[in-house]
C-alpha cells in the first residue's frame, strides 16, 4: 500500500508536468492551429537560465521566476519572428516552421553553450524526502504536484474572469469574429504564446527539480510526451490536455512500477499501445470536440 501511494505521488507529479506542457501546446494550437514543437526548446532555455543565474550567484527563489519571465518573453519573440510570417498558412507549413525553430534553438544551445549536460544547483530542501507514516515521497514531487494544481487553477480563473482570457477562448472558437469585437488579433496571439512560455518554463523548473541537470535536448522528450498527452486528451481542448497529461503520467509510472522485470523494456511500447487503443475507440481524444478552450 505504501508503495502504491508513493507511486501515485510520482504519477501525479509526472502527470502534472505533462499536463502543463500539453496545456502549453493546446493554448497555441486551439487559436492558431499550430503544433509548436519549439515548445521543448523553450523548456531547455528555462534550464539554461537557471544554470546562468546560479553562476551569477542568484538564489533559486529568484532564478526560477527569472527563468519564467525570460521564457515568456522568448515565446512572444518567437511568435513575432518565426510564426507571424506564416500565420494563416497551412498546418504543414506551420509545423515545419516550428521544427525549424526547434532545431535552430537546439543547435544554438549546442554551439554557444555545450553539448554536455550542465549541472543545475538546487536548494537542499528540494532534494529532501517527506515521510507520511510509511510511504515516503520527495519534496520536489510534492512541490511539482502543488505547483501544477495552482497553475491550472490560476489559468482557469484567467480564462473565465478576464476579458483577455475570454478573448482567448473566443479566438479558439472563431478568430475573425473575435477581431470584430475590437480585440487585437496580435494581442490575443501574443498572450497565447506568453502563456505557453509560462507553462513551458514552470514545467521545466519542475522537471529540472527532479534531475538537476540540463542539456540541449532536454525539452525534446517531455514535449513529445506532451504532444501525445494532448492528442490523447483531444487536441485543442485545454481540459483534454490536462486529463491526457495526467493519464499519460499515470500509465507510465504504474507500468514502470508494476510490470514484471522481463516486461520492463517494453514499457514505452505498452504505454503507446494503450494510447493507440484509446484513440481507436475515441479518435477525437478523451474530451470530445477538438476546438474548444477552457470547457
Amino acid at each position, binding site marked *: 500500500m505504501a508503495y502504491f501511494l508513493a507511486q501515485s505521488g510520482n504519477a501525479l507529479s509526472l502527470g502534472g508536468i505533462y499536463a502543463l506542457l500539453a496545456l502549453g501546446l493546446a493554448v497555441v494550437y486551439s487559436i492558431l492551429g499550430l503544433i509548436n514543437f519549439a515548445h521543448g526548446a523553450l523548456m531547455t532555455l528555462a534550464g539554461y537560465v537557471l544554470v546562468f543565474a546560479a553562476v551569477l550567484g542568484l538564489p533559486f527563489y529568484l532564478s526560477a521566476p527569472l527563468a519564467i519571465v525570460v521564457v515568456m518573453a522568448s515565446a512572444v519573440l518567437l511568435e513575432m519572428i518565426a510564426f507571424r510570417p506564416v500565420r494563416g498558412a497551412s498546418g504543414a507549413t506551420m509545423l515545419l516552421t516550428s521544427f525549424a525553430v526547434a532545431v535552430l534553438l537546439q543547435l544554438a544551445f549546442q554551439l554557444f553553450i555545450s553539448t554536455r549536460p550542465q549541472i543545475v544547483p538546487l536548494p537542499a530542501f528540494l532534494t529532501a524526502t517527506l515521510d507520511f507514516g510509511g510511504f515516503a515521497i520527495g519534496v520536489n514531487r510534492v512541490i511539482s504536484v502543488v505547483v501544477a494544481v495552482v497553475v491550472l487553477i490560476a489559468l482557469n480563473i484567467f480564462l473565465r474572469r478576464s*476579458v483577455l482570457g*475570454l*478573448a482567448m*477562448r*473566443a479566438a*479558439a*472558437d*472563431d478568430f*475573425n*469574429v*473575435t*477581431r*470584430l*469585437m*475590437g*480585440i*487585437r*488579433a496580435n494581442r490575443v496571439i501574443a498572450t497565447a504564446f506568453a502563456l505557453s512560455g509560462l507553462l513551458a518554463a514552470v514545467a521545466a523548473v519542475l522537471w529540472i527539480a527532479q534531475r538537476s541537470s540540463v542539456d540541449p535536448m532536454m525539452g525534446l522528450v517531455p514535449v513529445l510526451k506532451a504532444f501525445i498527452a494532448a492528442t490523447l486528451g483531444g487536441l485543442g481542448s485545454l481540459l483534454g490536455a490536462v486529463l491526457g497529461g495526467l493519464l499519460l503520467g499515470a500509465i507510465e509510472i504504474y507500468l514502470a512500477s508494476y510490470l514484471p522485470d522481463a516486461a520492463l523494456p517494453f514499457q514505452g511500447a505498452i504505454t503507446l499501445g494503450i494510447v493507440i487503443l484509446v484513440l481507436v475507440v475515441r479518435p477525437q481524444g478523451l474530451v470530445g470536440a477538438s476546438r*474548444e*478552450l*477552457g*470547457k
Partner: protein
Amino acid sequence: MLSAMDLHVRYGAIRAVRGVDLAVEEGEIVALLGANGAGKTSTLMALVGLVRPVQGEVRFAGEVVSGRDTEDIVTSGMTLVPEGRHVFPSLTVAENLRLGAASRRDREAVARTRSEVLDLFPILAERSGQVAGTLSGGQQQQLAIGRALMSAPRLLLLDEPSLGLAPQVVDDIFDLLVRLKQRGLTILIVEQDAVAALDIADRAYVIVNGAISMQGPAAELRASKQIAHAYLGATMVETGA
C-alpha cells in the same frame, strides 16, 4: 456616415466585388440585396476590414477607414453581425456579451448598454449562464445582435440576419431593427429575402455580379418588385448559383 467608392475585392483570381459605390446616411436603414454569390458578404467584409479591398476607398464618419485593421474600425463605431451569427459557441451568453464590449473602457456606460440589450432581448437575461452553442438559431441571432450592440456602434452592419430562421423569428428580428433605427442607430443590412428587407429599409441597392445594378428608395424598388425579382432570378441563372 458611410460611403464606399469604387470598391474592389479579389480572392486570388476571383473578382468578388467589382467597383461597388454605396452610401449610408445617418439614421437610415439601407438594404443591400442580391443573389447568392453576388458579392454582398464580400462588400461587408471589405467595409469592416476583414478583407482588404484591392482598390477603392471606404469612409466612415468622415475618415478613410479602408486599409485599417478591423479592430480599429470596430472601435471607431461600426460593427458587423456576421452571416450565420457566429456567436462564440463554447462561451456563455454573458461572456459573449461581455466580449462585445471589449473595446470600451467606461464600465458604467457598458453596464447601461448591457441593461438596454437585456431589455431588448429578455431571453438573453434568462439564458445568461448558458453556453451559446446550445441556444436555438433565433436566440443565437438575438445574441449576435446583442453582442454587436454592446460595442455601442453608430452603424450596424448585418449579414443575412434571416438565414435559417423561422418566418416568425425573422419578423421579430426585423421589427427589432426598426426599433433600433428609431433609437438612432444607422443600419446597413444584406439580405437575400428582398421583400422582407425592402419592408423596413429606407433605401436599397441591388448588387449583381459584384457591381451595383439598381438603387433607389425602398418604396420605388418595392413597386418594381417584379423587376427586382426578375433581376435577382436572372442573376441566379447567370451565375449558376
